[in-house]
């Protein structure tokens, strides 16, 4: 398998906030059901949040993106971005220059939209090895606007420059099952989620291959599909089939499970992705409930 121990050692040397993380709980703040014109969300699968007041929802079933902003303590929808070139968006990221990148779930390509929602083309990775064998499953932009794309077909994570030029790739670990999502921490560590085995792999910045970070966590995860990290380095894993969120400490230890399955506010029904903003708030794409839920993370 060729998994190196070096990245594990390096990562363990980073400061740990495990103690504080053990007390993280989710307090329900708000459920977002519709846009400002009253049109309800439909199977939202992806989301993006930045700063304290911006949330962009990939409203998958309505083939659009919806932007929410914080006003008087509540997130309210501001703008719908819809174009015929984007169908069933399943992931969305915001470029620092204002362009939006959304993963089209039907055609499985990354679409670039301008600030007003106008179509600006597709992300065509330049210079990647085996370009015809590329099927993006998930992607992230880091603080430098570099693209991290999980390529489902070739089982690799591609790293592209902000202009979309190939920089390098990391192959997914051999023997893995279904790699469904990735996350990139503030330190540049890439995390990779294997849904079938309930396993998380990681590659600290500059590493050439993934190493085991946590798991298998099958006793805590039924079928996880969403992954993110908070500024402290805690990982949040969205268990779609189990209707919950599992927290993993910076050293890979299991911290606990939050939330549960249901239809009432505060409960989740086949959730898919999670995003955490600088205000310590978590947004969860509660896909089966056709809504996005906002929680305060309380340490």
């Amino acid at each position, binding site marked *: 398998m060729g998994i190196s121990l070096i990245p594990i050692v390096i990562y363990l040397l980073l400061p740990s906030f495990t103690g504080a993380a053990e007390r993280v709980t989710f307090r329900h703040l708000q459920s977002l*059901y*519709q846009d400002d014109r009253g049109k*309800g*969300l*439909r*199977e939202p699968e992806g989301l993006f949040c930045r700063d304290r007041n911006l949330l962009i929802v990939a409203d998958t079933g309505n083939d659009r993106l919806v932007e929410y902003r914080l006003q008087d303590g509540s997130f309210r929808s501001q703008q719908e971005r819809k174009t015929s070139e984007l169908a*069933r968006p399943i992931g969305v990221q915001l470029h620092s220059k204002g362009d939006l990148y959304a993963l089209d*779930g*039907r055609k*499985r390509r990354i679409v670039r939209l301008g600030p007003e929602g106008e179509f600006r083309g597709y992300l065509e990775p330049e210079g990647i090895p085996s370009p015809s*064998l590329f*099927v993006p*499953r998930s992607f992230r932009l880091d603080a430098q606007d570099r693209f991290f794309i999980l390529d*489902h*077909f*070739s*089982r690799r994570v591609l790293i592209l420059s902000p202009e979309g030029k190939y920089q390098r790739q990391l192959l997914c670990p051999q023997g893995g*099952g*279904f790699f*469904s999502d990735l996350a990139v921490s503030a330190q540049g560590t890439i995390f990779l989620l294997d849904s*079938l085995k309930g396993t998380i792999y990681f590659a600290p910045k500059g590493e050439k291959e993934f190493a085991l970070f946590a798991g298998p966590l*099958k006793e805590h995860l*039924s*079928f996880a599909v969403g992954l993110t990290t908070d500024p402290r380095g805690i990982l949040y894993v969205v268990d779609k*089939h*189990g209707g919950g969120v599992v927290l993993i400490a910076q050293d890979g230890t299991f911290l606990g499970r939050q939330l549960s*399955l*249901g*239809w*009432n506010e505060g409960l989740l029904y*086949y959730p898919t992705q999670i995003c955490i903003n600088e205000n310590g708030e978590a947004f969860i794409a509660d896909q*089966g*409930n*056709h*809504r996005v839920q906002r929680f305060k993370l309380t340490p």
Partner: protein
Amino acid sequence: MKGSGMKFHVKVWGGLLLFLLSCLSLASAQDKFRLKPGARGKLCLGCHSEFEEKLRKSSVHSPVKGGECSECHNPHASSHGKLLAADGRKVCVICHESIIPDKAVSNHSVVKEGRCNRCHDPHASDVPFNLVKAGKGLCLDCHQDLAKGMERAKFKHSPVERDCLPCHDPHGSSEAKALLKRDLASLCSSCHPMDQPDFLKKHLNYPVGKTDCSSCHEVHGSNREGLLQENLHGPVSNRMCGTCHEASSSSTPFKTKRLGYELCRSCHGNMLRDTFSRSRIHWPLLDREGCLSCHRPHASSQKGLLKDEKKSLCATCHADTVLTQAKLAQREKQEREEARGKVIKGALTHLPIQEGKCDSCHASHGSDGMFLLKGSSVIELCGTCHDWSKHTTHPMGPKVVDPRNRNRSLDCLSCHRAHGTGNRYLILLPTVTELCVQCHKQYKR
């Protein structure tokens, strides 16, 4: 000279003294417990006289033959049944430590679990290696599906009819999967030389000598001539390997012409067009394996060239669902037994999953419905089996808004979870009352 003679005497006498001391020490150790002669086993036969008959059998376990019962049993007391010296599942490996090769590619589950007595009599039997039964009958007692298949097979494979051991190592194999002694191709070639013109002609000159013969052949017996598997892929039965593979004369004859689903598109274009027109697609279809994530390319014992029977196949990825159902089925059985005939209303399990018919509800390639459900209406789908839901039911449908969630309309999944919850009627809450008062709050106590 005199000095060297003296040294010689000292060595001889010294050696003799050491030998005598060793003998004394041994005798003293043996005498320590004041053991009677034969105390390590032969004495046991005084009471366990039935073993005299066992000892007359042709294959006797060597410690038994040597009268060393205490090799496996503790004569005084034990924490394990039958006064065994160790856990019944571990006692054999005290001597037979390397019965499973260190780097086993495959191992027999009963051996790994230490259930050696499923095949061997620990004392004696009339079959070599103390086996409890001779020949393939021993194996087929457990591998009954295989036995049935072999019985039904019109075309038999003569080595298989005789015994399993020419091909399989019953404990474990360091060479190949399925306990095979060597990889299948080299095993097969020991009887079917693969460089013969007739053999090559039958295989269209493809160098199959390094491939997996079971990809097309059912080596245990088949109803098809040439021991081919029950269900064949069209190009295989039509001997058109070149439809998918490069020419046999190529330097890479087995390389496929395209990768993933693109290879299958040329023949299964309509199916793939339909699949790709759906809003959701089953992700395994989109990886490098593509269709081969679930299907076999050449032949299969399963319809639709599936890799395995449906329940096991789906469980390779969705083990959470299948395991949950298995646990619920066990609980169902237990609770119904405890009820002793008293009626228990509501099921814990869902029959289609129990029967491995995941495709009763799910479209395995792609779908417009959530969870890859067939059709766009959950109510219609459930109604195909639960037909009362179409005429006598709680208000449901696109116009009936879920009081708990304004973005949801009420359908069967508003109250039930088809894969089971641990509650009867597959509801998410422990009691029907708790479920109903979620919406009918006026009745909440």
